[in-house]
């Protein structure tokens, strides 16, 4: 294999990595906001699923993908409200609430989808403006023949759908909100020591609801991306465990925004590799089975969690409902 060919393969892999990482990035940041405020959220999967479904339905009805995104955000936020009620207002078990919401989304989307469209839970295929289309960034055509840099710009950076760029912009924005604003400081404090925040006269309840709602918005965009950009419509269980991979990435990233970008790109790369090259042969000796590549994100997360490679310390007050002392 010559160099040019290998390089094109590499660009193809990177391009696919970017596209597959988008849902993971958005969901991971959603989890980051929620868990940094002390609310465990294993319902990322369900929120994305319901968002994917509603965005496909509304994009199909209106013929406009952006309305679809809004509907997706709405659906995801509705589940966030339930999660807020259970885990903040009624001091219930946050993990159980997350499990319930995942079940609810996976059942409701198929039941309602089947009743409305009679296609076994799928929604009609989206076409035209009901889907997002690739944006060609300026000069991409002009520089596509410039070796390496030009090719990289044209192939990997340019030519994605709008939500891709939104997702990558949310990473620095999240960092800025968390580490450079008063809201972010309070949000992090609420996840570490809610009593102190309460003493300072800030409502723990309001902060936590805020964080859970932000998580809802981000999961909504992530789900809408799946149905209106990556695919053309909703299919049952189309999130396929991405919410859990995002959760793994969050631990991998030790609850930090830029690390989260790195972790999700790594997990996206693994998915891209398992899609593009199902069977890898190392030096002609060992065949790496595709199942191993698929399981690698989970294995890596367990290794990180076990503390063999650096220690992942979760927010201190995570999972504990806050009860004001009287």
């Amino acid at each position, binding site marked *: 294999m010559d160099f040019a060919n290998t390089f094109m393969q590499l660009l193809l892999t990177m391009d696919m990595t970017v596209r597959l990482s988008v849902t993971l990035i958005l969901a991971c940041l959603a989890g980051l906001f929620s868990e940094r405020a002390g609310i465990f959220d294993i319902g990322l999967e369900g929120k994305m699923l319901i968002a994917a479904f509603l965005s496909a339905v509304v994009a199909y009805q209106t013929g406009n993908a952006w309305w679809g995104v809004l509907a997706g955000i709405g659906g995801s936020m509705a589940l966030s409200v339930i999660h807020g009620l259970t885990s903040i207002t*009624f*001091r219930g078990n946050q993990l*159980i609430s997350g499990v319930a919401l995942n079940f609810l989304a996976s059942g*409701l989307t198929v039941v309602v989808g089947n*009743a409305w469209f009679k296609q076994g*839970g799928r929604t009609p295929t989206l076409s035209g403006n009901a889907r997002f289309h690739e944006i060609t960034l300026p000069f991409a055509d002009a520089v596509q023949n410039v070796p390496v840099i030009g090719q990289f710009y044209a192939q990997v950076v340019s030519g994605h759908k709008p939500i891709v760029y939104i997702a990558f912009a949310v990473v620095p924005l999240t960092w800025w909100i968390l580490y450079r604003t008063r809201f972010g400081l309070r949000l992090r404090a609420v996840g570490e020591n809610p009593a102190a925040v309460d003493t300072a006269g800030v409502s723990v309840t309001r902060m936590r609801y805020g964080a859970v709602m932000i998580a809802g918005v981000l999961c909504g965009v992530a789900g809408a991306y799946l149905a209106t950009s990556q695919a053309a419509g909703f299919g049952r269980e189309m999130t396929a465990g991405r919410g859990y991979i995002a959760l793994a990435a969050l631990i991998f990233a030790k609850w930090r925004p830029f690390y989260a970008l790195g972790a999700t790109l790594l997990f996206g790369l693994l998915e891209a590799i398992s899609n593009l090259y199902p069977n890898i042969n190392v030096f002609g000796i060992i065949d790496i089975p595709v199942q191993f590549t698929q399981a690698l994100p989970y294995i890596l997360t367990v290794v990180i969690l076990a503390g063999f490679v650096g220690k992942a310390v979760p927010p201190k007050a995570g999972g504990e409902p806050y009860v004001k002392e009287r």
Partner: protein
Amino acid sequence: MDKMPRWADVFLVPFINLILAFVASGLVVLAIGENPFRAIWIMISGALGSTSGIGYTLYYATNYMFTGLAVAFAFHARLFNIGGEGQATIAGVGAALVLLAFDWPYWWLALPFAIIGAAAFGGAWAFIPAYLQAKRGSHVVITTIMFNFIGAALMGYLLNGIMKNPDTQNAETVAFPAGTHLPTMHEMLAPLGISFSRSAPVNVSFFLALGAAWLVWFVLWRTRLGYQIRAFGHSETAARYAGIDAVRITIIAMVISGALAGLLAINVVMGEQGRLIKEFVEGAGFVGIAVALMGRSHPFGIVLASLLFGMLTQGGFELMWDMPTVSREMVLVIQALIILFTGALDNMVRDPVERLFLKLRKGKS
């Protein structure tokens, strides 16, 4: 002084929760333009209206008893085992290895060894997360979720590789020896002159599940180990001061939990399929969470809740045939709402009920 009487705590609050979950489910059915009362009738008659329906109901209930007991057992040590799905999957490998190892002549000879195989593999799959929680402080919820996915990948690898039946395209093993066939309810009742549906998959594992429920009760409430597990779950610090070894209890509770989940493989792999197929657990590991919550983590409650969820699953299949607009996933919605109301929103009902009882008491005195 208790805020409310025990019967209210054990029966009234869960009952109200259940009613709320069913009302919410009814609203979903109503929203897609069907009659919820007709749906309930179809489900009940589908689950209990024939010996075939009852047979399927009991078959699913058997699965849920195993996974429900698994979740509950870990709950008592305040460990949330979401890994029942993966533990049962890997237990299937253990059971299959035992059953394929010899040409077993009799089922009663094969069964104890299959139980050991399934329980050992299921327990082993829970051991790693347990060890990591106890020794390295990694949260057991996250690691068991990860192990569900790793288990599914491992299963896919084995059934497409060394364990695959070369004569078929499907990812499955060869059929187990004929001697490993577990007696079904039909075969057990026929000599007594009672006719029972031949097609229903309920088999002798149902009694194994009832036995497991009794054993769980006995271990938790009648042995030193059970006392230690419950004390540890109640207050970790107090248990430590009492000299209870936290590492030991965490690992034992999780391994027993994994072994219980693993017994599901006996019912499905040995009892029904007669070979190992890829996705035989079919979400029963997750239903176990709902069952344990509904049954208040008590074996007796779990048996009752398993029967309810068995009816739901079987009734859901009938619903699909008789009411085509309502798809089978309606069962999933109902399960989700039950988990939500009995598990997460418990205080929504409990607080007002408590206040009501306090007011009644004040009125008396």
